């Protein structure tokens, strides 16, 4: 990570300081990565053991209840990643810090992935339980919209040539999409939906049995660690790609 680059570039053009000094970020990323990666692996092993083997079956749903340990944390992450992305977008818009923009950009495909997992596992669970793969109720529809929002966000990043403008356009879209978050969260309370209401994050505390809560929380932790690991990895790639393009341009100029 040393030698070439950022300092030399900065000397060429004092204006480059605006791109901050990402070597600090890169060094931090390298430091963090092994920890979050091993945490992720460990939590997945333990979490999946409890989720698939060491937890009781549901007296109504039988073994299909185990899908929940994959489905529910994915739904939390789908929302959480979007919230993080929108926050980073707002920071990028207000303080014009490129690292915030790049974090949002790096988070989007991961969030889209979690949303897709949530939708697919939901359908797999719905078929044996409700007798249908899909219903157009408020919760399912609003999560589908969330998925499209992720896709639109990523497409908007792609559409602009100028990364600065792409970042701001995408940030505006991300912030507009925030109105969808409370709709998803409260859709099960506002409308009579097939989807069950919240049972973990309620004002009265969790309403499910500890034997089910444990694998759920372990899996949620594993997802979170997975997100952090992949985010760091993608962020690093983004920073390096950005630096490569600046270098390439500097070479092209007289």
């Amino acid at each position, binding site marked *: 990570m040393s030698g070439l680059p950022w300092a030399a570039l900065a000397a060429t053009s004092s204006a480059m300081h605006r791109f901050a000094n990402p070597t600090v970020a890169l060094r931090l990323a390298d430091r963090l990565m092994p920890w979050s990666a091993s945490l992720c692996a460990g939590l997945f092993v333990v979490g999946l053991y409890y989720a698939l083997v060491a937890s009781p079956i549901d007296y109504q749903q039988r073994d299909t209840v185990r899908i929940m340990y994959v489905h529910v944390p994915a739904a939390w992450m789908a929302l959480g990643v979007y919230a993080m992305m929108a926050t980073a977008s707002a920071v990028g818009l207000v303080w014009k810090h490129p690292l915030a923009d790049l974090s949002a950009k790096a988070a989007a495909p991961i969030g889209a992935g979690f949303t897709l997992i949530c939708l697919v596992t939901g359908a797999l669970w719905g078929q044996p339980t409700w007798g249908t793969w899909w219903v157009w109720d408020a919760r399912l*529809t609003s999560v*589908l919209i969330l998925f499209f929002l992720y896709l639109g966000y990523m497409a*908007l990043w792609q*559409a*602009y040539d100028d990364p600065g403008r792409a970042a701001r356009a995408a940030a*505006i879209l991300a912030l*507009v999409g925030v109105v969808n978050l409370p709709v998803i969260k409260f859709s099960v309370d506002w409308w009579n939906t097939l989807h069950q209401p919240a049972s973990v994050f309620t004002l009265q505390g969790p309403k499910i049995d500890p034997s089910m809560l444990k694998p759920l929380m372990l899996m949620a932790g594993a997802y979170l660690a997975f997100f952090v690991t992949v985010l760091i990895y993608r962020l690093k790639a983004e920073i390096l790609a950005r630096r490569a393009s600046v270098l390439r341009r500097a070479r092209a100029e007289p």
Partner: protein
Amino acid sequence: MRAFLAILRRDMAVALAQGAATLLSVAFFVVTITLFPLGVGPDPATLARISSGVLWVAALLSVLLSLDRLFQADHEDGSLEQIGLGPLPLELVVLAKVLAHWLSTGLPLILAAPVLALLLNMPVSGLPVLLLAMALGTPILSLIGAIGAALTLGVRRGGVLLSLIVLPLYIPVLIFGVAAVDASISGLGARPHLLILAAMLAPSLVLAPLAAGASIRLALE
């Protein structure tokens, strides 16, 4: 206020001068709807059941197709940057242009809707609520559309991207617009659905100009 009216007046004059282009979205609305009886068969009961959904989907697509008129032409011929240098904040410029867009697109759709509803065999009892729901819903479509149109200004393959961004955001309008009409036809009372539409219109009136204004500022760089 004078500047707001100037923009509104000019956009209306442009829309009128391009009469054909303006009528095109209504024509599209009509043609799309006539496709449904051909596609699902002329059975009156079936048509009546799907009429509200068909009308709303067609209205949604008509508005979507007309969105490129909103800022695109002004961006390409340089008018938008000159307007941006004018005394009116871009947020209000957006509001004026959205109003003109709604008057030249949403309003004709609302006027055409009852006739088409009858052609689709919708019970007459559903018509007042249909008109009311469209009066509340089509401005939301124009407002949300303005965000997408402004975000995709001067972008490659802007049209496809515009659909990808805007259509998901249109889904709530579609759901409650259809639900309102269906509820009134089945005698359940459309009030809650209409109230939700109104509740969506209010924040759109504030949020859309802010977001679209910021996006236009970006496009003018």
